[in-house]
């Protein structure tokens, strides 16, 4: 790992260990904005790792951002950190200034399109936007007459209907109806109408890998601690075998996700992103099952913190495309290139 990456990884882990405690998680589920947590992240420069230094960011790469998002997943940080990082990248990539404050993205579903009118207002609906009602800014991709625009809208200027995912993270339906935009610029190099979809899948795979790493650590600790039949349950082979499987799944999710972030630093990353979302999503299902089995009834209570991770995993594996969605895409792309192209494509990664 590079020096910068190490520093980022250490900083974010220390910060989140301090700032994401039980009361924060609980009140965030009640709809409160975790002010201290967000401030801490902002002050440490962790909300804009990808923005160049001369624009007030850290000047890091996607490979570095992986560390930040893996940590966010590990700690179940109840803030739109991933969304803010992607939004900041879209803005700076398109030559726009990156404002302070939490940001989110729209649209976050592949079948939705927003349009920018000639008087610089936005029309269309975006459902299930993460923290859509709470974010200070919404960064959207919108179709203008003459091409794709990256658009910034002040939070609060669209009609909002709040909902939540299984982890009770806010997911809001936004309605834009001649909504004034703060700024709009032609989309920067390499940005297409699908970019939010792709990067969204990528950041969720890193968060899932983080949550899985934590499931593993917590489950191992619990297995060494909980005593039944006169010994720690971790001494039972049936438990050991399951935790070994969880270790493999967690490692696979991280490897797949990290590969996608590295590919994003090199250019087109659709193949790796699809693989990462599929593999991390599969691992999420298996990992959550094993962690709950090992924890017994206590892990099924609201009191225990396990569900902050497992409910996120169940939600995140569906957001920005399920395994099935990405598998169908990837499968069509692979088949379209023919059986004999596969190995060359896999090794070109």
């Amino acid at each position: 790992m590079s020096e910068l990456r190490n520093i980022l990884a250490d900083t974010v882990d220390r910060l989140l260990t301090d700032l994401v405690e039980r009361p924060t998680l609980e009140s965030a589920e009640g709809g409160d904005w975790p002010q201290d947590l967000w401030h801490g992240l902002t002050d440490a420069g962790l909300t804009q790792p990808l923005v160049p230094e001369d624009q007030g960011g850290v000047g890091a790469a996607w490979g570095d951002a992986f560390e930040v998002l893996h940590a966010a997943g590990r700690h179940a940080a109840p803030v739109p950190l991933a969304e803010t990082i992607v939004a900041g990248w879209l803005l700076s990539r398109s030559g726009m200034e990156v404002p302070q404050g939490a940001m989110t993205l729209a649209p976050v579903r592949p079948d939705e399109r927003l349009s920018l009118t000639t008087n610089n207002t936005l029309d269309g609906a975006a459902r299930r936007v993460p923290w859509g009602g709470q974010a200070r800014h919404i960064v959207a991709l919108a179709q203008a007459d003459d091409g794709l625009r990256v658009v910034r809208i002040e939070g609060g200027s669209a009609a909002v209907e709040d909902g939540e995912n299984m982890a009770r993270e806010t997911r809001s339906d936004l309605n834009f109806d001649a909504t004034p935009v703060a700024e709009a610029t032609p989309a920067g190099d390499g940005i297409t109408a699908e970019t939010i979809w792709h990067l969204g899948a990528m950041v969720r795979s890193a968060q899932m890998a983080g949550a899985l790493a934590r499931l593993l650590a917590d489950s191992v600790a619990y297995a060494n601690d909980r005593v039944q039949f006169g010994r720690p349950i971790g001494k039972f082979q049936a438990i050991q075998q399951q935790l070994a499987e969880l270790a493999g799944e967690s490692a696979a999710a991280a490897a797949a996700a990290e590969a996608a972030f590295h590919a994003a630093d090199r250019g087109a990353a659709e193949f790796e992103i699809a693989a990462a979302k599929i593999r991390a999503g599969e691992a999420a299902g298996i990992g959550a099952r094993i962690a709950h089995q090992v924890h017994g009834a206590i892990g099924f209570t609201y009191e225990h913190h396990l569900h902050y991770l497992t409910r996120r995993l169940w939600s995140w594996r569906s957001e920005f495309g399920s395994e099935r969605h990405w598998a169908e895409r990837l499968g069509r792309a692979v088949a379209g290139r023919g059986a004999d192209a596969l190995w060359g494509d896999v090794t070109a990664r």
Partner: protein
Amino acid sequence: MQSFRFEPCELPPAAEALRQEVRDFLAETLPDYPAVKRAESWAGFDPDFSRKLGARGWIGMTWPADYGGGGRSFFERYVVLEELLAAGAPVGAHWVADRQSGPLLLRYGSEEQRRRLLPPIIRGESYFGIGMSEPDSGSDLASIRTRADKVDGGWVVNGAKVWTSNAHQAHYLIALFRSDPKAEERHAGMSQFLVDLKNTEGLTVRPIRNLAGEEHFNEVVFEDAFVPDDMLVGNAGDGWKQVVSELAFERSGPERYLSSYQLIVELIREASQAPGESHAVAIGRLVARLSTLRQMSLSVAGKLQAGDDPALEASVVKDLGNSFEQSIPQIVHELSDSEPSMDGDGDFSQVQAYLTQVTPSFSLRGGTREILRGIIARGLGLR
């Protein structure tokens, strides 16, 4: 607790440059090689092919030039291996010698043994087998009973090895015997020996047909078989330590996730370039797992190159890889209602039939799933 982080690893340009060379060589050497033969993967035995590889310098690639080795990096070797496996090349003859016997001799063998045994391996002419398992000792390798008793000028061996792959076609076995009957500790009193499979009196090799009708593994019986002193590998009594390090070589390579690769290729061919939805989804899932395993396997190669000991990571990749290899015939079965058969019409049917039969062995050979998970659990601090 070990966190099992698989650092991404990028292949250096020298290794990538080699890739095209290997592809050209394979296109030239195996132009019409049948799909069902490719599906044999590293079980395919072809001395001619091994000699051709040797002539290219692609056996013993990382070994010191002093012994005729290529002195190349682990990355270059990795590229050659993965290209050979993806193409389903018949690498079985020299595979064990290249993967573990040679490295074992480099680490523990005598100077004389290296000078004598390594050059023919490198030329693709000398093949090795692994004599570990016995009728009553599988996963519990430390319980072996075959004994080597010290006599003047050598050792007299009695007992039997079993499941010994290629013993009927190989030149040497590196075998683990009990050499000190008085040793009290379970892991003590064992030693590794070279056994000359072609010229040892009192040695009988009998092929054992596997469920697919093939003869790959064998029973090897020792009845007062004499093994000279200069065939002891390393120190008498160090057998266990040596075998453990040998097993790490055995588990670290791309062969641990690519053994069913040909069925993915044939599935894609069968699905056509415009597949139906369920085929597309299945292919996408398989390719996601495939490319993730490759990243992980490559990361293990990176650790080897850096001089680290990736034994634990290798166990993780082997466990995930074997499960992946075994899932492929199952997934293919769920997609199709035609019956796979070895005399079936077309490559797809034959490859599916072949792999359906042999995949159960993938999570047995080289350490069972349960044993690997036990090793991983130990790494997690549970044992």
